[in-house]
């Protein structure tokens, strides 16, 4: 890169000259140059720690044996790493380490040929054998012992620590008898994840890792991301599921659970079963991190209850059919519904190619714009963004957030919904960046927030108006930048001027000082980033909230700069891709307008058809239209929680209304039960194609598993077959690359993208010889797959990490003026308040008991926080048992009167540990896809008499 102007310096390791840069440590320089120096506590991505003393070296002209992980490089430095005396020292250090770890096998020459029930001539007890360790075959510690060539006999006697195994927390097994106290887990949890759910305990010979008072991870602040497991060099921390299985094959996939686009390495055993997920260290999307969903939520790939054969409804019963029969039934019936009586709902985890074909099928074959994907229930998320700036996407890359001066998180529970986005945000907050959270709910990030603005639900827009006004009133606008880059914001100023701050404070229950403070922190920060979702916002406020947030970014000059920008938190895995390739009702591929006649003409020429220009229906409208009987037939790919979680009303009942419903899905579920034809669908891991993450990164995936019986098929094949049977050409592609070529020809922002280009974004990472011991994550990360961030045009086929750096597509950004209103709370007489749920990792203000058993459970009284005035009407006192009655059920807990809670808000904050237990014990096939969000509901509070509560 151009800014990399530091001059190289040369150091020599064992006589080999290597080039490196000042500021690096010797170990780091050696690893980059492919020279192996043994290490156990160092791990890429964490600060050096110098605890294990395995990386000691000697320096010519220097004294002693410094640890190379904390030894800064200096020009001309001559390092000895493989000398006799250095290796002797390492061996004696290792002797001390293996004195605290079962070592009979570590130092035995038969270790690789021993079976679990072999007679051991060294009398190593079965429990202490490597062969019975879950980490065997990928144990960095064993590899290091063998690399050092330890003697058969250790002079120090090993004594088993006799610590009971912890096997009752969700997902993790902990066997601290194997721990070598390298501290990687403690450091990754603190430095990288920002949680500090683990700590060192005790001292000297008894030092280990653990939690405060030895508590369960459920109450120690753990988010079950698995980062500690991924870095553990021994068998102390392992995934419980498939604990003993050995990896025989590793394939890279993109995680299907959210739009961050995490690259995961999936381990498969000899029988082809997926046994573990290890996040990719070199991935630009996730930097070696994953979350509870990605790490522990891919078990569905192994489920044997997959749909393997098409089903056709005959005489009211779904009966097995051949693909040929099923496709013929569909091809025979669909022509009846051509036009707007049909809707196609694709899946958010379809590939770009499949989503493109889906919308092409709907538009060309069925002649309708009723095409969408099922996670797109809030299309307003990006409408305002696109109108004001030009593109419907995040302006910057996720990991730039790490370097932002201030981050504003608006109505987003991203720690659960787009978890890895939270990692750079927490890192930034740890570094001293300011974090502002605007949310009525207590979401996990509020713990790190410098300022948590908690408006009354429904008044968020007015609060944003107040913040914008505070920016202008305090003279914090970047007028110079605005003049150059934005249309004249006169109307905006005029509207802001008319906002009455007293009114804002009264309605939102956020103090004027807090508003002014938030405005000041954001506007004065060196790089301010806005991260937003529209969780729980009333539909009529959504567009204006987005416009307000865009205006905030514009007024403060935070667009087109590194470490700044605006990030819409989409929900579905490939929602960005769906929007890009036109799998949305009112947009054509490339996010081009249906109203643009030249665009439509060009597309008609290219597709050789006529395109309907009437407005299409999105997922929410389509479900409503099905309910009304306007839509008579649908093709739905993949089940979605939105059909059953109530956000679209009773989705399933509406779908039952249809004359003809085709469902393509992986598992037999509620959606498939109401279909007329069910087609088995390939999973994300069986597909060839590309996905686009929320940071606009187009990433290529290749099939990593084969569907067992070959029964399931990708959508691509289904659309091809259906179109052919219905007499349409233009749907037969030799392979996925050809579809991408067509996408490139019709989507301007993708016009430079091709599979060869994506392939060229892969580079080999050189990390010392293959035979050397390495952490598992490093072992799997020989390649860096950057993908490419659009716009990637034919003229300039390079990635665009930051949008609008060289201006805006429409010339200037347009600060569109929102209408700053707060709708009158339309709470009916039955429900006088709002149930505002929250969920955090850690709560220390109340008694929590963990019931230990086969699976640990949390038991505690949930506190229902209320404003005292609200409680008075109901005559509720602190500590009274109360019930929160909502349209979706009843909650009970103990009242806590809290004047900081806005009147009318009934706030209940639960622990994430509880959710982890529920997900772990869920009967769902793919429980992580059904992880409940935090939905605000209308509610009322009722006192429970002591008798009935007992």
């Amino acid at each position: 890169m151009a800014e990399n102007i530091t001059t190289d310096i040369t150091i020599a390791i064992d006589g080999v000259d290597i080039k490196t840069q000042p500021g690096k440590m010797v170990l780091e320089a050696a690893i980059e140059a492919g020279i192996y120096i043994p290490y156990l506590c160092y791990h890429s991505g964490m600060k050096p720690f110098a605890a294990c003393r395995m990386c000691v070296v000697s320096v010519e002209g220097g004294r002693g044996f410094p640890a190379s992980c904390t030894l800064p490089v200096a020009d001309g430095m001559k390092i000895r790493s493989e000398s006799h005396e250095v290796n002797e020292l390492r061996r004696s250090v290792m002797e001390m380490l293996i004195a605290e770890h079962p070592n009979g096998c570590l130092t035995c020459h038969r270790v690789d040929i021993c079976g679990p029930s072999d007679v051991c001539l060294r009398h190593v007890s079965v429990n202490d054998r490597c062969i019975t360790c879950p980490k065997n075959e990928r144990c960095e510690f064993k590899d290091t012992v063998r690399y050092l060539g330890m003697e058969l006999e250790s002079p120090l006697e090993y004594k088993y620590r006799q610590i009971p195994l912890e096997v009752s927390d969700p997902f993790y097994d902990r066997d601290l008898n194997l721990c070598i106290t390298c501290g990687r887990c403690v450091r990754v949890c603190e430095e990288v994840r920002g949680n500090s759910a683990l700590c060192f305990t005790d001292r000297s010979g008894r030092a280990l890792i653990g939690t405060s008072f030895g508590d369960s991870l459920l109450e120690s602040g753990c988010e079950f991301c698995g980062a500690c497991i991924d870095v553990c060099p021994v068998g102390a921390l392992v995934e419980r599921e498939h604990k003993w299985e050995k990896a025989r094959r590793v394939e890279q996939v993109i995680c299907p659970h959210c739009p961050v686009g995490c690259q995961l390495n999936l381990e498969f055993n000899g029988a082809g079963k997926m046994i573990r997920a290890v996040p990719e260290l070199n991935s630009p999307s996730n930097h070696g991190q994953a979350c509870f969903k990605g790490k522990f939520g891919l078990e569905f790939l192994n489920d044997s209850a997959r749909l393997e054969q098409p089903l056709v409804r005959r005489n009211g019963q779904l009966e097995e059919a051949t693909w040929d029969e099923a496709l013929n039934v569909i091809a025979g019936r669909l022509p009846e519904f051509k036009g707007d009586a049909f809707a196609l709902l694709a899946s958010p985890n379809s590939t770009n190619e499949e989503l493109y074909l889906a919308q092409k099928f709907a538009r060309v074959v069925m002649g309708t714009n009723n095409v969408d994907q099922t996670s797109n229930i809030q299309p307003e998320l990006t409408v305002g963004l696109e109108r004001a700036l030009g593109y419907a996407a995040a302006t910057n890359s996720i990991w730039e957030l790490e370097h932002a001066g201030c981050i504003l998180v608006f109505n987003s529970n991203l720690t659960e919904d787009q978890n890895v986005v939270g990692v750079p945000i927490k890192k930034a907050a740890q570094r001293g960046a300011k974090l502002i959270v605007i949310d009525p709910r207590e979401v996990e990030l509020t713990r790190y927030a410098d300022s948590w603005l908690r408006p009354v639900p429904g008044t968020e827009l007015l609060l944003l108006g107040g913040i914008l006004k505070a920016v202008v009133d305090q003279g914090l606008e970047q007028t110079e930048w605005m003049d150059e880059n934005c249309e004249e914001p006169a109307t905006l100023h005029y509207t802001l001027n008319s906002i009455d701050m007293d009114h804002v404070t009264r309605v939102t229950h956020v103090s004027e000082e807090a508003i002014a403070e938030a405005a000041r922190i954001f506007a004065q920060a060196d790089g301010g980033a806005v991260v937003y979702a529209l969780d729980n916002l009333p539909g009529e406020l959504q567009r204006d909230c987005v416009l307000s947030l865009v205006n905030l970014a514009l007024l403060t000059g935070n667009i087109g700069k590194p470490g700044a920008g605006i990030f819409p938190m989409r929900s579905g895995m490939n929602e960005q891709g769906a929007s890009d390739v036109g799998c949305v009702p009112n947009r054509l591929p490339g996010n081009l307008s249906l109203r643009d006649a030249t665009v439509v003409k060009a597309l008609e020429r290219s597709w050789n058809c006529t395109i309907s220009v009437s407005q299409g229906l999105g997922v929410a409208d389509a479900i409503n239209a099905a309910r009304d009987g306007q839509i008579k037939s649908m093709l739905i790919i993949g089940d979605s929680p939105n059909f059953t979680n109530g956000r679209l009303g009773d989705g399933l009942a509406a779908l039952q209304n249809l004359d003809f419903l085709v469902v393509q899905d992986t598992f037999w579920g509620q959606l498939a039960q109401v279909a007329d034809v069910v087609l088995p669908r390939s999973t994300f891991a069986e597909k060839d194609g590309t996905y686009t993450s929320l940071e606009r990164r187009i990433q290529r995936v290749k099939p990593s598993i084969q569907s067992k019986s070959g029964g399931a098929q990708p959508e691509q094949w289904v659309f091809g077959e259906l179109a052919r049977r219905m007499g349409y050409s233009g749907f037969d592609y030799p392979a996925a690359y050809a579809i991408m070529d067509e996408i490139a020809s019709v989507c301007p922002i993708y016009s430079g993208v091709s599979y060869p280009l994506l392939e060229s974004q892969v580079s080999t990472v050189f990390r010392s010889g293959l035979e050397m011991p390495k952490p598992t994550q490093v072992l799997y990360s020989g390649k860096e797959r950057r993908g490419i961030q659009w716009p990637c045009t034919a003229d300039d086929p390079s990635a665009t990490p930051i949008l609008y750096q060289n201006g805006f597509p429409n010339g200037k950004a347009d600060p569109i003026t929102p209408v700053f209103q707060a709708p009158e709370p339309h709470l009916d007489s039955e429900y006088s308040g709002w149930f505002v749920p929250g969920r955090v990792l850690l709560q220390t203000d109340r008694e929590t008991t963990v019931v230990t058993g086969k699976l640990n459970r949390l038991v505690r009284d949930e506190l229902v926080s209320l404003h005292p005035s609200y409680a008075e009407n109901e005559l509720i006192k602190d500590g009274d048992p109360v019930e929160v009655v909502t349209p979706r059920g009843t909650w009970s807990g103990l009242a806590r009167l809290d004047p900081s809670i806005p009147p009318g808000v009934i706030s209940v904050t639960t622990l994430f540990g509880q959710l982890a237990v529920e997900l772990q014990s869920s009967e769902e096939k793919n429980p992580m896809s059904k992880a409940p969000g935090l939905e605000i509901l209308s509610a009322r509070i009722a006192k429970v008499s002591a008798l009935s509560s007992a």
Partner: protein
Amino acid sequence: MDGLKQRITAAIHNQPQPTVTVLSSLLAVEDAIGYIPKDAVEEVADLTGTTINDVWAVASFYPNFRFDPPCEHQLELCWGPSCHLMGAMAVIAAALDQVGVEGEGDTSDGKLSLRYNTCLGACAQAPVISADHNLMGRQSPEKVRAAVTALLASPSPHGQGGN
């Protein structure tokens, strides 16, 4: 229970020294209450902007912190080098015999917590013991027996709500 919380809060928030750290806060709690209750770990974490686990890492590192309520009286017996030379082992043996325990720990009746100490900082007075934080020098087996008897007969310093 609430009384305990208030005592923790008072101890943590009334530290005299200008620099307040995790360690100084833990010491303040230990001094005031005699041990580190779970609530104190949480409160120290809140005060110092760290997590309960970070506080626990510090607290569990130091053997001088205890995490369950101490007995009514504390007896510390120094076995540092000076005391050792001046006959600490005989003093310790006599003290153990008088208390009726085999070694460090709490008596089963909850009367006395007995600990060894590596230096009480009064080597000139060796052998030294500390009875409820009062240093007593130039001990002999006879003197220490008398000291234990007197200690057990005295009122508990924690009985009156700490210092």
